[in-house]
């Protein structure tokens, strides 16, 4: 099980790749043994995706050699890589939702008799594959109907149907629950025992320690270090290699004076909330909202913000009740929301960074309330970019070209352009690399110091324990506890968040 005994099968030797304006990879070399799981970690922009794309035949390296089984290979296209036994399972799965599991598994090489589809053979072979993975799945089921964890299994089975020897996973667990991650790891271990070569790319260091035998760290396109065994490696060590700094700096917490209540929720009820919610956020305080998936945290933020209509209850700001029927009421009062899914709910992808920042505040700068004030908008965008250290080549850069961390900062900049009294954040650091996370935490501390109420939803328990002054736990649509930082521990918070009869962490999102 140690994965240290197999011979090297996959190796990258001196791989370099550039794109106009950016050197994505330079001189990256490391090898992976048969029957082992090798993790590839690094911040956004470190070069992991580029390396995977070279492996899967999407790109050709500018320099260097890729070897499989000792032989140098060069893939002119992705089909060649698949034929060579390489499969990459991306975050955005490559499945056709309207087709069945069986059809997806054999897409492109369906069993047939002289060109006529052999359905019985298709079904039989598909069932065989799924059984081989230990999965009980109806192969006639339309893939789009399956939950994401099962769709991922189909993608893995698809790779196996092509006899993939090298299987790479790109951030496979971002949408999975703890139980589903365990199931995935069970399958990865089985694949490993079959002698395959597994490459595992992930942000989540706890997982690396659970599943990987060895790890390579990339930073800014360069190979930093490869650890052949994880026995004596610690998480702070890995973070240090990834970021070039020490983990104690990542949370960077220091206490602040706490003042009068700034945001008070009284008896609020609405869609997704099982009983009336009471919540207070004081000046200088960062309140974390923790709970399992489905606990009602996002729903609570949406009711406060006016996206969902409250059925009863009130929101008070600085002691005065604020009637909120829609987001613009909240915004005008000074309550703002950074949504959970940036891509779906936060950004305007083809519009510029400048416009994304000014989209709401522009009404405050406008001439006569309707004409755009270009000069003021430009000045505001420049100020936000400087203040929040937003990395973008220019203000007119399309928003979709920015990294996740910078996109989140733009959304924060959107709200800091206004006169903000309370900020609601929903999973603000999800999908963001370690360095950018630290910057966002510092921004949050700054807001709190300025007397702005900060209420943040997070599923990352270490993060919640690391940055919050108080942790409010939700369970099944209601608030069950409010725990000050000093009294909070991982076990005590988890116990509060889990349904009464569960004693393990089966249901938490890692």
């Amino acid at each position, binding site marked *: 099980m140690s994965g240290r005994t197999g011979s090297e099968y996959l190796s990258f030797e001196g791989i370099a790749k550039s794109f106009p304006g950016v050197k994505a990879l330079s001189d990256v070399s490391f090898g992976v043994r048969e029957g082992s799981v090798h993790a590839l970690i690094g911040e956004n922009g470190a070069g992991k995706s580029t390396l995977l794309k070279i492996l899967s035949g999407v790109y050709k390296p500018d320099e260097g050699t890729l070897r499989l089984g000792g032989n140098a290979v060069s893939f002119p296209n992705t089909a060649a890589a698949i034929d060579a036994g390489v499969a990459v399972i991306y975050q955005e799965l490559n499945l056709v939702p309207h087709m069945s599991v069986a059809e997806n598994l054999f897409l492109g090489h369906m069993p047939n008799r002289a060109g006529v589809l052999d359905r019985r053979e298709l079904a039989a072979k598909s069932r065989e594959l799924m059984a081989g993975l230990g999965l009980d799945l109806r192969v006639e089921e339309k893939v789009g109907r399956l939950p994401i964890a099962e769709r991922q299994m189909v993608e893995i089975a698809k790779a196996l149907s092509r006899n993939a020897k090298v299987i790479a996973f790109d951030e496979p667990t971002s949408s999975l629950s703890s139980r589903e991650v365990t199931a995935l790891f069970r399958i990865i271990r089985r694949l490993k025992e079959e002698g395959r070569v597994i490459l595992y790319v992930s942000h989540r260091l706890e997982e690396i320690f659970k599943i990987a035998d060895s790890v390579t760290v990339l930073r800014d396109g360069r190979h930093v270090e490869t650890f052949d065994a994880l026995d004596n490696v610690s998480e702070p060590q890995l973070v240090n290699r990834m970021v070039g700094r020490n983990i104690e700096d990542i949370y960077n917490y220091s206490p602040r004076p706490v003042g009068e209540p700034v945001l008070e929720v009284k008896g609020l009820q609405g869609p997704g909330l099982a009983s009336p919610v009471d919540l207070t956020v004081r000046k200088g305080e960062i309140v974390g909202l923790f709970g399992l998936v489905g606990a009602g945290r996002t729903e609570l933020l949406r009711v406060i913000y006016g996206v969902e209509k409250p059925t009863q209850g009130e929101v008070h700001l600085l002691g005065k009740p604020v009637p909120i029927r829609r987001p613009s009421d909240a915004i005008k009062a000074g309550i703002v929301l950074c949504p959970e899914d940036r891509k779906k709910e936060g950004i305007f992808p083809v519009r510029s960074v400048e416009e994304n920042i000014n989209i709401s505040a522009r*009404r405050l700068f406008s001439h006569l309330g309707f004409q755009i004030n270009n000069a003021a908008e430009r000045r505001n965008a420049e100020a936000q970019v400087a203040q929040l250290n937003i990395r973008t080549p220019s203000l007119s850069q399309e928003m979709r070209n920015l990294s996740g961390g910078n996109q989140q900062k733009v959304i924060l900049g959107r709200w800091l352009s206004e006169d903000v009294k309370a900020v609601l954040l929903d999973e603000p650091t999800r999908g963001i690399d370690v360095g950018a996370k630290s910057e966002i935490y510092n921004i949050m501390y700054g807001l709190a110091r300025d007397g702005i109420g900060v209420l943040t939803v997070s599923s990352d328990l270490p993060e919640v324990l690391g940055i919050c002054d108080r942790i409010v736990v939700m369970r099944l649509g209601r608030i069950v506890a409010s725990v000050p930082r000093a009294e909070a521990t991982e076990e005590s918070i988890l116990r509060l968040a889990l349904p009464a009869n569960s004693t393990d962490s089966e249901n938490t999102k890692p």
Partner: protein
Amino acid sequence: MMVIFVVLFVAASIWVENFATLNNMKTLLLQIVQVGIAACAMLFLLATGDFDLSPGAVVALSGVIAAVVTNRTGSVALGFAAGITAGSLVGLLNGVLVAKAGISAMIATLGTQQITRGLTFITSGGKAVGVSNEGFYWIGSYQLFGFLPIPVLVMGCFFAVFGYLLGRTIFGRNSLAIGGNAEAAKLAGINVARTRIIIFTLLGFCAAVAGIILASQMTSGQPNEGLGLELRVIAACVLGGVSLSGGIGTMMGTIVGVLIMGMLQDVMNLLRIETFWQYVVSGAVLLAAVLIDRLKQRRTA
């Protein structure tokens, strides 16, 4: 697309007889008035990611109602006001159906298109409604300074006003934002439903104005007019770079799109090409122009 327009224009001036004359330019511009005015609002509509199949029917409706009311009351002003109101109401209905009732824009406007067309036939008794009141013809026939037809002037004003709205006002930018990501627009505080309703109503209004001008030009309300207009308007917008999935569009581009389509039709008329072949050519040019544009974009992307 501007380049394509200039190239076609120069080519036409050189090779097509009578193209580059003041008279022909006037004819060309007069021919595109309906499409041009409707395109001003359709640009906004497509920008928000919506769709509207009713403008053609509204053109006919407003013309017929203007004619009928003018005949009944003897007042041209009242007739025009009635026509414009009727068209705007159809637009409002579209907006409410799509933004509030949540019906898909294509289906909703298909329904209102049929209803509007039907009501137009009923109101007109199935035939053209002639108007004897001379004031009715004024908009369609008067030429300012002796050479600038009023319809063209009106179209120019609409281009200017809507262009300003799209490019320089919050309302215009919000429309593009809604098309780019409606959910994000809502969370950013934009009143998405209200904006969409306003835009549908504006399109009804524009189509109504176009209809009244047309009726004035033809000195009668014609229930058969405007058939297929909406598709020509959408084609002009797409030619002008408006994305059918929303979020992208400019007034300059739309104007060029309208001009290209108008120029094409004008040239074919001058060359006496049969009407049926004109359909083929129009369709082919639309496809070619969009393909060229797509290829250009792919190279810069």
